[in-house]
């Protein structure tokens, strides 16, 4: 008995031999290829919806490079230096020269704007995070609704076909007795 198919009282070996022969013949004639069978068999059935219209890595990329946007800014930063001991001396000189510098331009609005920007960045990231979440959810909802529309469309088509079948039956039923009368 063939290991592919079994049945009590049916010559399965003969059936399978015929089937193998027909498959081989189709392959010889190029009607059926292993690629085609493989392509159909391996066509995935994704269980989870993918919100593909939204670039979900955007938020991950932003959060990965935290230093770029999550900075703190205070008025002392404009005098600061990263050059160690020499830097501390430089900082003192800058502070001493501050009144003279103020004769040329006023750094206070810039300092205040950058401080506000640092605070805003924190809020923006929070906002983007929430928006990304919402957008993903909305995207999935849209896909879900689209699917439901297609489902309804399918049902509608089925109902339309049923309606036609029903109409045909009614027409036949109405025509039937007349025909019988005519024959009589």
């Amino acid at each position, binding site marked *: 008995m063939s*290991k*592919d*198919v*079994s*049945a*009590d*009282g*049916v010559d*399965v070996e003969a*059936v399978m031999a*015929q*089937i193998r022969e*027909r*498959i081989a013949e*189709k392959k010889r004639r190029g*009607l*059926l290829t292993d690629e*085609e*069978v493989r392509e*159909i*068999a391996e*066509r995935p*059935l*994704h*269980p*989870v*919806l993918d919100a593909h219209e939204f670039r979900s890595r955007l938020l991950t990329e932003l959060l990965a490079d935290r230093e770029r946007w999550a900075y703190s800014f205070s008025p002392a930063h404009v005098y600061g230096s990263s050059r160690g001991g020499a830097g501390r001396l430089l900082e003192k000189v800058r502070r001493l020269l501050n009144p003279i510098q103020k004769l040329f331009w006023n750094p206070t609005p810039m300092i205040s704007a950058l401080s506000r920007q640092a605070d805003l960045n924190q809020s923006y990231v929070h906002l983007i995070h929430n928006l990304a979440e919402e957008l993903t959810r909305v995207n999935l909802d849209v896909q879900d609704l689209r*699917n*439901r529309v*297609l*489902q309804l469309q*399918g*049902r509608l088509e*089925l109902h339309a*076909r*049923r309606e036609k*079948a*029903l109409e*045909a*039956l009614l027409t036949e039923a109405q025509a039937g007795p007349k025909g019988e009368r005519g024959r009589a």
Partner: protein
Amino acid sequence: MRRPVHQLLAALSYGDAISNEALAIQAHLRRAGYDSDIFAEGVHPRMAHLARPLWQYPDVSSRETVCLFHFSIGSAAGRLIHHAPDRLVAIYHNITPAHFFLGFHPHLAGLCYHGRRELEAFATRTELGLGDSEFNRRELEAAGFARTGVLPIVLDLDSYGGPVSPVVRRLYDDGRRNVVFVGRIIPNKRIDDLIRSFALYQRHAEPHSRLLLVGDYRGHERYFDRLRELVATLGVQEVVFTGHVDHDELLACYSVADLFLCLSEHEGFCVPLLEAMVFGVPVVAYDAGAVRETLRGGGLLIQDKRLDVVAELMSQVLADPALRERILETQRRALAELRATDFGALLADRLAPVLGTPAPSSEARA
């Protein structure tokens, strides 16, 4: 006073095989002189006069009462009976392994996972576990049930002689080859494999064909949507998802069927296989779960689900009248065996270990 042997179900539905089995059991028990009612959490309006609400069960519950509990996952009926003093018989219709639902229905996957653990919790509480197939009985044994047996679902074959829906019959009896599957549209039934095999069959054997998928998909829309996508990407024509159908429509679907194809990978019994045989539709089925047992030697069983082989087999069965007749002959033999089954005697025999013995003392039960 008549001895009480009641049944407990999660739901008594209209046209459902388990509900019909419960009603058949009740009829036999009543005929045998037992006081037998059905208690259910949910009752279909058409069945309202046949069942009592679950909340009335404590009125009949006692140490003398024998309760036949149709095991179902996460049900209030299960929680109620687990803590009741009644003598308990579990009738097990199987739980689909959780992995089939992962991704498609995570909640149900969780329920199925916990359902199997719940079944184990019933093992020590139950005097007897009855599976509706040997496959299910083995699962009961694996879950730790000490005393087990098989009580197969026996169909009320007369119910298939009713009128068929003329509209549905008209709709699909149009000269196309109808390949039919009946069952819920859920992942373990591998509807996707049916579509894939049918795609090959339609492309290379019979373009004038239809795949009729008769079954409810409500609650499994995610899987259903993916299937429709698959149909669209494979470019298969005439794949019809009927959704839930009434009994006369179901009969019409069988009456227009040229072949019943089942590629399900997990079945605890699979009533539609028997239904197809009743309608003289040749059955080709994948040998998984209890399918072999249910077919009782009828139909063609596939051990290897190679798409090209399945498609060619469909073509062969549909095109070769002699082969078709030989398959139908095997099915007629299986049906004759089924018809010869005396369900009343079988039920009495299976319940004898419980009904034939007095209630054990509370010490013995503890």
